[in-house]
């Protein structure tokens, strides 16, 4: 930050609240924890993509030395073993049937990991193989085998009306339409049309899924987990075990990365059931190989066409999106809804028709992945923007500028108008690239953007405690997954209460202590939890004013607020002085609270539009097809950066994740089997993939509904990177590739085909 901030604490890059713990190795993650008398679980996984379980014989495993118990689908009597926040289609361990290679079929609970691991081999399972449904085309066939042939109940979320079961392999269908698409295409001057494919990806949070569950004899269930959304996990656990909410306690220590992959319930019901049948605390630590078999991102095939008039003004977009959702719904119903919304991009479209299907297949379940459907659909969206710019004879940046929605304009009927300066952001990114100098031969450049309806459903509750000694606690159910919730929330409380940052302590996610926060994702923490903390502080201050008025014997509305206290004429009282005199007892505290819900300023959805703006300059090695990054620029339109350095770090982190999918990341199935589910074979960005020039810019127009006008960030920049690379490749070599990642092989083949065409 070069400009001087008008704020005392926020909008400054203060030290991370979790910093010293994380650089000294003392930060405790769930994987580091042991609890007394703890047993260990290991999971037996299905070798088949689709099969009936005829029988399981676990007797030899049960009598193996060091084995406490074995959990199978037959041992769950008394539980409600199906969970899922959207659709309760997911059994905590396979019941009667397996639906993907790697699905948990049994869990051995042992005195130690080795005993449990050894006993896995002594479980014999008889399967009756069914026809596997391995891709969306097979799943959609009229006579396709059904992956789920029973009806399921809805989960914690209301509003999903298309529950699966019964007759189709469709998990969720979403339709978005306005205007008259047919007429618009008939009148169009230019049309871009094509089929795009966004690959199956793995988030690779470096800490694999892990949980410790302790089901005590009094019926209290305590779970430590690497979960992003502890309150959603609590809901599912309460339903599985028919417990009241006050008897399920979910605690989230530090989490080693999430990127959406740890959102909602994962292994917690399985681990809790292991504790339930063994009467012991149980820890289940998955390996990275097992994490590959737990959650992935939805791959997406998009058939799309987009039209403009003869002046290059966008007229219409029509798309059919097929998401490969895998074996269970997880969060894919939400991914499909978001994909259908986000495919429109940040542009003015008078006519739109989108159909999105989330489709069950016998593959690893897909769920949230950074950007939640945004990356999947920004790829076709921004690719066709460049295709149309060329057809209309426009510069791609100019073409975007003339079609981008301005602040206050609506891009979706009924949704919140755009709360960002999109044309300004795109212009800045283009200028930043230009400042890096003229483009070298063999290079290509592109600037792409996206707008995502972010923030998820706004239900966020928070408390602050103001103590008689002037210290303050913030109680937040927002999980610290690295995004910095432990660092951005305390400064907001310090700013509001007029105290130094050192006086504020953050109390993190523990469902027995912190109030309900729907989720930690969709870039919502700063905007929603930040706003809740701000409102909770103001409520505490309002209480202090009433106390001070009584103590000073003056009307409360005559009190003037100043940093850290109130004043009336010459008389001033700080918060500690007020509490001290009011209670006449040391050690007291008061509680300020905030209950945010979808009302007032948060009535309009989305909570905010998350903007992603990325520019790249790529170097193409035409001999090998290898693309490397010369320049990467990002523009983060975040309203106000509560913590500028961390906001920038989020932007480049998201862009780098996008770079991975853009250039090398892809899960590959050969038949039923995931072929590259290890980190030896799944290539993610490394140090050497860092661009030679990186420039990050924050735009702070204070136009969000978060505290001081803040909006979320951290996911936006992932979305435009794939198309940005594809467009830059087109600029560099004249080949248009509609399938990510742009591996050297794929690029080389396209270059050869182009050469062959030129010779014809």
């Amino acid at each position, binding site marked *: 930050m070069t400009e001087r901030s008008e704020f005392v604490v926020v909008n400054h890059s203060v030290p991370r609240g979790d910093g010293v713990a994380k650089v000294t190795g003392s930060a405790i*993650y769930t994987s580091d924890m042991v609890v007394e008398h703890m047993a260990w679980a290991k999971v037996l996984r299905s070798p088949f993509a689709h099969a009936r379980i005829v029988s399981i014989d676990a007797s030899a495993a049960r009598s193996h030395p060091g084995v406490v118990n074995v959990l199978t689908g037959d041992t769950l009597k008394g539980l409600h073993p199906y969970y899922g926040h959207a659709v309760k289609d997911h059994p905590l361990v396979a019941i009667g049937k397996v639906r993907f290679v790697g699905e948990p079929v049994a869990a051995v609970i042992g005195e130690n990991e080795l005993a449990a691991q050894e006993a896995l081999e002594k479980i014999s399972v008889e399967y009756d193989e069914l026809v596997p449904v391995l891709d969306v085309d097979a799943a959609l066939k009229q006579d396709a085998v059904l992956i789920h042939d029973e009806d399921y109940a809805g989960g914690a979320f209301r509003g999903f009306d298309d529950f699966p079961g019964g007759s189709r392999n469709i998990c969720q269908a979403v339709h978005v339409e306005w205007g008259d698409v047919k007429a618009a295409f008939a009148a169009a001057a230019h049309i871009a049309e094509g089929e795009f494919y966004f690959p199956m990806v793995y988030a690779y949070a*470096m800490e694999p899924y892990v949980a410790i569950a302790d089901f005590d004899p009094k019926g209290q269930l305590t779970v430590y987990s690497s979960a992003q959304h502890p309150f959603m996990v609590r809901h599912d656990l309460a339903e599985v075990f028919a417990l009241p909410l006050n008897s399920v306690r979910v605690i989230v220590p530090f989490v080693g*990365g999430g990127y959406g992959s740890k959102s909602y319930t994962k292994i917690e019901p399985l681990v809790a059931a292991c504790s339930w049948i063994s009467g012991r605390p149980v820890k289940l630590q998955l390996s990275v190989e097992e994490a590959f078999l737990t959650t992935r991102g939805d791959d997406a095939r998009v058939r799309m066409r987009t039209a403009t008039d003869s002046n290059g003004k966008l007229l219409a977009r029509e798309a059919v999106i097929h998401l490969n959702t895998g074996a269970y719904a997880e969060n894919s119903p939400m991914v499909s809804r978001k994909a259908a919304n986000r495919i429109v991009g940040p542009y003015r479209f008078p006519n739109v028709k989108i159909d999105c299907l989330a489709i069950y297949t016998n593959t690893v379940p897909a769920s949230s992945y950074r950007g939640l459907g945004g990356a999947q659909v920004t790829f076709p969206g921004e690719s066709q923007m460049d295709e149309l710019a060329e057809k209309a004879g426009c510069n791609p940046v100019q073409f975007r500028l003339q079609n981008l929605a301005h602040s206050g304009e609506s891009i979706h009927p009924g949704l919140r108008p755009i709360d960002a300066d999109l044309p300004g952001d795109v212009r800045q990114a283009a200028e930043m690239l230009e400042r890096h100098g003229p483009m070298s031969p063999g290079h290509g450049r592109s600037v792409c953007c996206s707008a995502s309806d972010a923030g998820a459903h706004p239900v966020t509750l928070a408390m602050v405690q103001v103590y008689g000694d002037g210290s303050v606690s913030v109680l937040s159910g927002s999980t610290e997954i*690295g995004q910095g919730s432990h660092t951005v929330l305390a400064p907001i409380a310090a700013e509001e209460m007029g105290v130094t940052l050192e006086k504020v302590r953050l109390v993190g996610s523990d469902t027995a202590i912190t109030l309900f926060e729907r989720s930690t994702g969709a870039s919502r923490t700063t905007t929603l939890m930040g706003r809740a903390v701000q409102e909770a502080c103001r409520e505490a201050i309002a209480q202090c004013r009433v106390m001070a008025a009584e103590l000073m014997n003056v009307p409360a509305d005559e009190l003037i607020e100043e940093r850290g206290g109130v004043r009336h004429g010459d008389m001033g009282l700080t918060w500690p002085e007020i509490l001290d005199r009011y209670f006449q007892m040391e050690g007291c505290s008061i509680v300020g609270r905030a209950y945010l819900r979808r009302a007032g300023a948060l009535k309009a959805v989305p909570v905010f539009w998350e903007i992603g703006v990325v520019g790249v300059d790529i170097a193409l090695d035409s001999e090998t097809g290898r693309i490397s990054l010369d320049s990467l620029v990002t523009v983060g339109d975040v309203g106000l950066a509560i913590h500028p350095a961390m906001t920038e770090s989020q932007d480049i982190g998201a862009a780098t994740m996008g770079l991975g999918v853009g250039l090398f990341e892809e899960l590959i199935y050969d038949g039923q089997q995931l072929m590259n589910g290890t980190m030896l074979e799944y290539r993610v960005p490394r*140090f050497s993939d860092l661009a030679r020039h990186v420039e990050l810019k924050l735009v702070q127009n204070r136009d969000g509904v978060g505290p001081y006008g803040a909006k979320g960030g951290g996911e936006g920049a992932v979305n435009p990177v794939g198309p940005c690379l594809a467009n830059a490749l087109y600029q560099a070599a004249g080949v248009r590739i509609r399938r990510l990642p742009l591996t050297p092989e794929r690029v080389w083949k396209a270059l050869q085909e182009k050469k062959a065409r030129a010779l014809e």
Partner: protein
Amino acid sequence: MKLSFELNGKPTQIEIEARETLAEVLRARCRLTGVKISCEAQVCGSCTVQVDGLPVSACTYLAYEVRGRRVTTIEGLADASGRLHPLQQAFLDHFAFQCGFCTPGMIMAAKSLLDEVPDPTEAEIVEHMNGNLCRCTGYLAILKAIQQASKEMRVQK
């Protein structure tokens, strides 16, 4: 079997089983959980510790191999008074981590580089650090932190 080695400057003698990896022994028996386990295949670098000053992936290194040798983990980096190592301070100053899971291994790998090459070029840093993955930061802040620590450590000498 008995294992005698020097751990973070202290002579250490513990009972281990022959099959145990160094990461397992450090985490479970010595409770040094700053040693993180992720890929278990020498790809990610999160389990990096120093053995006789050289970086090793503790996840695939048999604990028995460190008999009579010097092992340094992230917990042994700050000095006795608790003053942080220049790399630790530089990682703080540059916000060179988010979730922090890769950080101990990242710092230990960087220390091994700066111990050998006090003034590395950017290309040398990138090459040396290419075996340490970070999924959060996009690496830029880590690069800057290592450059700052390099300067700091040369001034201190």
